[in-house]
């Protein structure tokens, strides 16, 4: 791997070639890491996670890229640190930070590079013309379902012969989702406790300390409790609204769709919204009925997915959120009910 390619691997350290480069050139067993002077990489790894917690984005400068060995190495180390911390919030924020950073960098790439990254991440695309990329329908559905804007809905897309067409930016968005998934899954892999050198543990502590100082972390620092039916993200919005805090449009949407999905009756939901400073009975009633599909063509709105809630900065997961992709799945009990037949 030479020149440009090395820089690309440093810029996108989740690419398989970065992994290959490391395993070819560096002894990655945990014991030897301590010795091989990878302290710089460890420091950079801590920075990656801190970036994610503070800015929700891992920043990579041109200088970082030139330090390509350190840069590539810092990524798997960061993953080890995050999985050592064993906290759902840190996991999700780190995955978000890496994927957001990657997205921003991808926007400046040529379409060829973009297609290359997509290919390697399992988001294969085909160039249709200069500005249009085709993606297979199943790939598209896997990644795009959680975006809430109407133009992401399949029914509003150009669909033909098994493919969905889109521009560069949208394609980069799809790759971002996959990067997020990839990083998150990596951080779920447990690290054997004995295998971790002391400097790693110290580095992890440093991150925990920072996160303790950040206000946003508080909700999830509560130790394991009984699992409730309401996921923490929604519980948090509800509590704030009960205190009369003014909720954003999106927060209201989340709470209302959630209550509808849990079969709370409309009047009850409207009553709940009555504590909002700008509350008007008729307006709220109209909106809630709209979401419930009683008005406006009968389309019932679904509760946004975890991914959407996360990108809106409202995900405050606890350990029961591990692997959960949709808030309605939180606290779900799986019993075989009546058979559903056709």
């Amino acid at each position, binding site marked *: 791997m030479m020149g440009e390619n090395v820089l690309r691997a440093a810029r996108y350290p989740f690419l398989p070639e970065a992994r290959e480069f490391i395993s070819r050139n560096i002894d990655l067993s945990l014991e030897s890491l301590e010795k091989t002077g990878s302290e710089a990489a460890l420091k950079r790894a801590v920075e990656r996670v801190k970036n994610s917690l503070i800015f929700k984005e891992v920043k990579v400068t041109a200088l970082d890229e030139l330090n390509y060995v350190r840069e590539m190495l810092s990524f798997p180390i960061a993953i080890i640190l995050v999985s050592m911390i064993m906290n759902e919030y840190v996991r999700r924020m780190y995955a978000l930070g890496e994927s957001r950073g990657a997205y921003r960098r991808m926007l400046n790439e040529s379409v060829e590079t973009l297609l290359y990254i997509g290919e390697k991440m399992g988001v294969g695309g085909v160039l249709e013309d200069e500005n*249009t990329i085709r993606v297979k329908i199943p790939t598209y559905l896997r990644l795009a379902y*959680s975006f809430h804007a*109407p133009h992401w809905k399949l*029914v509003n897309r150009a669909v033909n012969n*098994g493919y969905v067409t889109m521009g560069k930016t949208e394609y980069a968005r799809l790759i971002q989702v996959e990067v997020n998934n990839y990083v998150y899954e990596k951080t779920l892999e447990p690290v054997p406790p004995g295998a971790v050198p002391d400097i790693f543990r110290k580095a992890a502590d440093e991150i925990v300390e920072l996160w303790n100082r950040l206000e946003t972390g508080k909700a999830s620092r509560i130790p394991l409790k009984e699992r409730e039916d309401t996921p923490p993200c929604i519980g948090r919005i509800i509590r704030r609204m009960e205190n009369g805090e003014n909720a954003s449009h999106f927060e209201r949407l989340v709470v209302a769709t959630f209550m509808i999905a849990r079969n709370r009756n409309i009047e009850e939901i409207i009553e709940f919204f009555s504590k909002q400073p700008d509350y008007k009975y008729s307006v709220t009633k109209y909106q809630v009925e709209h979401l419930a599909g009683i008005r406006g063509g009968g389309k019932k709105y679904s509760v946004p997915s975890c991914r959407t809630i996360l990108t809106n900065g409202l995900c405050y997961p606890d350990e029961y959120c591990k692997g959960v992709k949709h808030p309605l799945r939180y606290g779900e009990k799986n*019993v075989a009910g009546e*058979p*559903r037949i056709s």
Partner: protein
Amino acid sequence: MLQASLEFLKREFFKYYYENISRLVPPEPIRSREFGFFLEKGRGMFRHKCFNSLKDFHEFILNAIPLDIYVSAANYEDPGNRDMSEKKLVNAELFFDIDAESVAAVSEEESAWICQKCGQYGIGLIDRCSSCNSPTELVRLVSEKQLKEALRETEKLIHVLTEDFGIAPENIHVFYSGNRGYHVHVNQEDFLNITGEGRREIVDYLLIQGLDEKELLNFLKKGANIEGVSFKGVKRRVYMRILEKAGSMEKLKASGRETVLKTLVNAVEELKVRIDPVVTIDMHRLMRMPESINSSSGMVKRRIRLEDLPSFKPLEEAIAFGDEEACLKVKIVPRFSLGGKTFGPFKDEEVELPAYAAVYIVCKGLGEYAGR
């Protein structure tokens, strides 16, 4: 249903399965599917059953002679587990159900009413008893016309699946359900892994739900030339239909917003594929087993080759039984067509019918077996 009737059914079903068992081939791989059976009338489903081989499956059927046979659309790691989440879903075929009754209305002639209170009954769709005015129980037999409409929807579905979704014809399996509709199974590799959320999007696409009307109205207002735009898929179809309906772009531009919206609604009504959304989204669904008997009609869930679809005659080609005569006692049976013949209406009589028609009446709960 009287015991004699049930025994009559079981005898006829046995004959069918004995002769046709080799046609009952569940989707591959059989080991990862869950099976479900109705073994007796009015009893719950016997489910979470799995088989190691086709031979085991066939043996079970010939032993039990189930009234209905179902197989999961999904492949599971542990299909026999009673806990749905412990079954561990691997993937699932895409499954579509088109119900004739939600596509077209039933006719008066093919319906009957029964009053549970005073025992009166008659032909027609009457919801209040003519002598005591209590609510009636309605019997609706599916008509050829309804099934024709449903078949047309099925063809629409296949068109979208092949044209828009790029699904190879050999991966599309079409069936008459044996009673009121059509089933379409899609087992194209890369579509098997689509999640429930993704299937929801496919459903919305087919039912044309969530269409961005604003974009459409803007486009029409600009009067852009549709050929010059990169619209594809259902959106293009909707736009084209609106233009067709309006006559020309000029006329459309001249008409008010209300008219345009109305044209849009009508275009969507015509173009949408009337599938049952719940069925397609549900990955754990049990599908009626291809080539098995549907006990609500005594007809077979029959495979239809794509090229035969336009000319398929469900009420003739899905017959499972012979035409030796059987004797039935009937209260009320509306007119019905089966096997190319028309029967009825019957009222308070003993009738001799060919076995396939007799089974049909018994399955519908409209008559009891009274010997050969």
